[in-house]
């Protein structure tokens, strides 16, 4: 790994340039135009980054509440109907002895979404209020949120597979519950929220004091 030692000592923005997010071509500011090489919209920084981040995040958090309150899966058999929420599904897995799988589901459906909410709120607040916090730490946190968010979809796919597979008529049938809708929405909107947050804003604060 070679560290490029040939920097200009400024950001592209300070040099009056804007980078195309896709092909990397540089444009003269004020850009707000389509990239001359690949045609993508070039603006230098993501438009209304923080505003969008908050908006998507709020929807994500709101959807996460019904996702946990309503059942995600309804099991119908001749002994009666049982419904599982996200948490009761995890507990059932743990009690049946599959501790490892229980942990995987718990991490994907509870730990990752909640950690993402907290990290995004923290990053956004740190940008609003110019907290004196290491850029490297925030950079790592941002990379993590972009990377882990998609893994929350595990529970949605579990429900889809079980509902398709367990169709044994009166003996045993599994149906998806309303909670899984809300959960999928929550995951999708927090993914949008994480991608709306422009990591370059973290570093833009460096030049102003500190």
């Amino acid at each position, binding site marked *: *790994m*070679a*560290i*490029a*030692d*040939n*920097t*200009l000592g*400024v*950001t*592209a923005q300070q040099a009056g*340039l804007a*980078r195309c*997010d*896709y*092909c*990397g*071509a*540089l444009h003269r500011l004020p850009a707000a135009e389509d990239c001359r*090489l*690949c*045609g*993508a919209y070039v603006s230098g920084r993501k438009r209304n980054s923080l505003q969008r981040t908050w908006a998507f995040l709020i929807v994500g958090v709101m959807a996460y509440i019904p996702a946990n309150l309503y059942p995600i899966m309804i099991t119908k058999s001749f002994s009666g109907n049982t419904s599982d929420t996200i948490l009761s599904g995890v507990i059932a*897995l743990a009690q049946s002895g*599959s501790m490892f*799988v229980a942990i*995987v*589901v718990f991490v*994907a459906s509870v730990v990752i979404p909640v950690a993402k909410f907290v990290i995004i709120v923290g990053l956004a607040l740190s940008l609003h209020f110019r907290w004196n916090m290491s*850029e*490297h730490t925030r*950079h790592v946190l941002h990379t993590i949120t*972009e990377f882990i968010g*998609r*893994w929350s*979809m*595990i529970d*949605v*796919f*579990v429900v*889809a*597979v*079980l*509902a*398709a*597979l*367990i169709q*044994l*008529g009166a*003996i*045993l049938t599994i*149906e*998806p519950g309303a909670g899984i*809708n809300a959960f*999928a929405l929550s995951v999708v909107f927090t993914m949008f929220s994480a991608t709306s947050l422009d*990591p*370059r804003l*973290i*570093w*833009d604060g460096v030049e102003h004091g500190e």
Partner: protein
Amino acid sequence: MKTNSSRKVSFDDLIACASCDWLHYRTIIERGSRASCARCGHELYTRKPFSIDRTLAASIAGVVFLLLSLFLPFLSLARGGISSSISVLDAVGALWFSDMRWLGLMSLGMIAFIPMMRLCLLVWVMFRLRYRLGIIPSMRTAMRWAERLEPWAMAEIFMVGVVVSLVKISDLATLTVGPAFWALLGLIITTSFISIFYCKDSVWQLLTTHSA
């Protein structure tokens, strides 16, 4: 090295970090190595050996695996004389027919449509680059979409979901995995090969310098 300040610097000699916007001169790096941002450490560009050939090969293999995984039986279950067998498309259909239309469509997109579109775009662009069929503007649009779609292709997450489901119902019925299960595993392996072989900046350099 183009660090001579008296010389007029062209845009093409500069590269800005995608993650922190720090500006660097492009330099020639060794084959197989990678240049990182001096400020935040994010990758600037790489020079991977035989990137186009290998990405093309892995993408074609990916298309084959994806087709196999979609249409072949995926899991079968037997209990008390009743058996059922599902394909990946049945799993999506289960959501659709339980009146969760949009969730079914979204899963169809994430498991089938988006990965397929991304792979086909990669195959097309890499094929044209590999056999020097000329650069046309729509190749850039294609690469842009291939990159934009990447986080939404969730075959590997679906696979973990399947394994969790297997464990959940292992005491309810006898389960057997079908050929599509292994095809999906193949798809996950080829997808990770694509991310190892694909040399983003080099491809964009090829796509942009030969025209303009």
